[in-house]
């Protein structure tokens, strides 16, 4: 059973470094500690890890420059006091998020011409950079243009500028260009910020071969003296663990010690995840013991990972024991914890036990999500508790939950096997309608189920 528990899948797709949210007046330094570890995200049934951007009040409805200028004039004429920097920045942000870069720059020029009291500062240019990720045509050239515009206005790019530029390039997939820009900026203007550096490493890990990432690290160390820190190592370990390359992970851990770092909770969690993903429960427990030895406090993610790993390698009993010990340490099991446990129970064929766990978790005020239901549906269909499965499916359907391909296939198979073909067709319709699966894969599993059923019948007749 190499299947990944649905509840865990969200962990893998969660983006590790959160984008800094920008307020127009003061773009904050991206001084958040990146969290490279299994997600802390509240499982809300969404598998996408993209942070939802706050919707700005849209002042400008049209991207046309003339309209924007007209609207701006009408704002000025109605207000008594001249606008301050903050208002101008918000106006620019609102316009730049829908307009092209050239129009936004012209609009900025126009504003500073009409109101001489408004002098753009660093943050104004940062708005141009940060909104450029909304434009599909944003490129290295457009980022360069903003930077040049900024320099001609007497502002030197600082580390926030570099960070924003890199992020906006990465968000449209131009990682190589971002690397190029960083090298250039670090030579001319500002040393490379560690957060920018880690963001780049993360992006490179996502889309490039491991050797490219290592080359980048070596190159940055020699060209501008940027050294990987503990977070960088965590990102790297996370990356190799995700591709099940545990040997490389161990090499990185020893390298990390050599560089004088001490692994923290995030590193341990990541290593543990690596073991869990290949189903090595004993080693995962080993990591947990090691953590306790060095005096690190395990957190909720540690326990969730551990319970996931133990459930996966068929050690549900031990997993349940950890449920108690985590409560002792003041961590409350969440939806991910329960779903992992249910997954383990379903693997053992104890779907009824999983079902009673659902009751227990609901009683404790923990809301199941679509992964929980999918796990249960899969388990129930597998242990031939079809009636319960149909009940659960009705519940999922009424709250518009998506079906996962594994639970869809097993459910359809169970339905067909007990001669409820019409219902299976109905599930097929729902899966396609709710866009859970593509019609191709939904149809293929329906067709092959019916085919194998027919074959089995014919064989039975022949005997």
């Amino acid at each position, binding site marked *: 059973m190499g299947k990944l528990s649905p509840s865990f899948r969200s962990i893998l797709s969660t983006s590790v470094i959160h984008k800094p949210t920008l307020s127009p007046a003061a773009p904050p330094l991206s001084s958040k500690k990146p969290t490279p570890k299994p997600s802390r995200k509240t499982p809300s049934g969404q598998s996408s890890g993209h942070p939802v951007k706050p919707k700005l009040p849209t002042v400008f409805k049209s991207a046309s420059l003339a309209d924007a200028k007209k609207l701006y004039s009408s704002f000025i004429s109605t207000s008594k006091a001249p606008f301050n920097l903050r208002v101008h920045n918000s106006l620019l942000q609102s316009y730049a998020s829908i307009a092209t870069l050239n129009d936004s720059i012209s609009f900025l020029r126009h504003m500073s011409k009409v109101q001489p009291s408004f002098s753009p500062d660093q943050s104004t240019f940062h708005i141009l950079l940060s909104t450029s990720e909304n434009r599909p045509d944003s490129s290295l050239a457009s980022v360069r243009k903003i930077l040049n515009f900024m320099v001609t206005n007497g502002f030197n790019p600082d580390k926030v500028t570099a960070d924003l530029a890199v992020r906006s390039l990465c968000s449209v997939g131009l990682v190589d260009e971002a690397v190029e820009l960083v090298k250039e900026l670090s030579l001319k203007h500002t040393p490379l910020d560690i957060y920018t550096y880690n963001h780049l490493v993360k992006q490179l890990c996502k889309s490039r071969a491991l050797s490219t990432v290592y080359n980048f690290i070596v190159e940055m160390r020699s060209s501008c003296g940027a050294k990987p820190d503990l977070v960088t190592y965590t990102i790297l370990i996370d990356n190799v663990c995700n591709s099940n390359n545990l040997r490389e992970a161990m090499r990185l851990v020893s390298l990390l010690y050599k560089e004088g770092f001490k692994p923290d909770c995030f590193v341990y969690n990541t290593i543990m995840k690596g073991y869990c993903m290949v189903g090595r429960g004993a080693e995962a427990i080993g990591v947990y013991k090691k953590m306790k030895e060095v005096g690190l406090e395990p957190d909720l993610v540690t326990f969730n990972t551990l319970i996931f790993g133990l459930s996966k390698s068929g050690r549900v009993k031990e997993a349940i024991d950890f449920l108690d010990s985590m409560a002792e340490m003041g961590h409350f099991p969440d939806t991910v914890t329960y779903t992992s446990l249910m997954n383990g129970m379903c693997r053992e064929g104890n779907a009824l036990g999983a079902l009673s766990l659902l009751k227990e978790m609901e009683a404790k005020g923990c809301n199941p999500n679509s992964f929980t239901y999918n796990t249960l549906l899969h388990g129930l269909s597998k242990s031939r508790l079809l009636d319960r499965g149909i009940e659960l499916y009705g519940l999922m359907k009424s709250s518009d939950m998506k079906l996962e391909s594994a639970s869809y296939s097993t459910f359809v198979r169970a339905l067909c096997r007990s001669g409820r073909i019409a219902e299976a067709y109905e599930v097929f319709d729902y899966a396609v309608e709710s866009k859970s699966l593509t019609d191709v894969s939904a149809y293929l599993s329906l*067709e092959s189920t019916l085919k194998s059923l027919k074959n089995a019948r014919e064989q039975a007749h022949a005997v």
Partner: protein
Amino acid sequence: MTIRRMKMAMTDNPKKLANLIDLVNLPSTLREFVGQSQISRLGCFKCVWSYIKTNNLQDPTNKNVVVCDEKLKSILLGKPKVELAELPALIKLHFPKNPK
């Protein structure tokens, strides 16, 4: 595990996928039914299934059986009754493996 294997077979075998989603020139009987001159096997299946649903052709006592009307009979080998389970296989008959 069978599901997994099936998926593997699916992704490993682009020919099979092409069989399912490529547009095929239709024989005249089928052309009349779907109202198009070309359709894929998947499209055809969806078309027939939605025809069954909109015209309420499922046997009310046994939903697994379709009671064919004249139009449906013309494309499903003239059978008066068809099991839902054999629908994909029957439709496949219109889409021979090597049309050329």
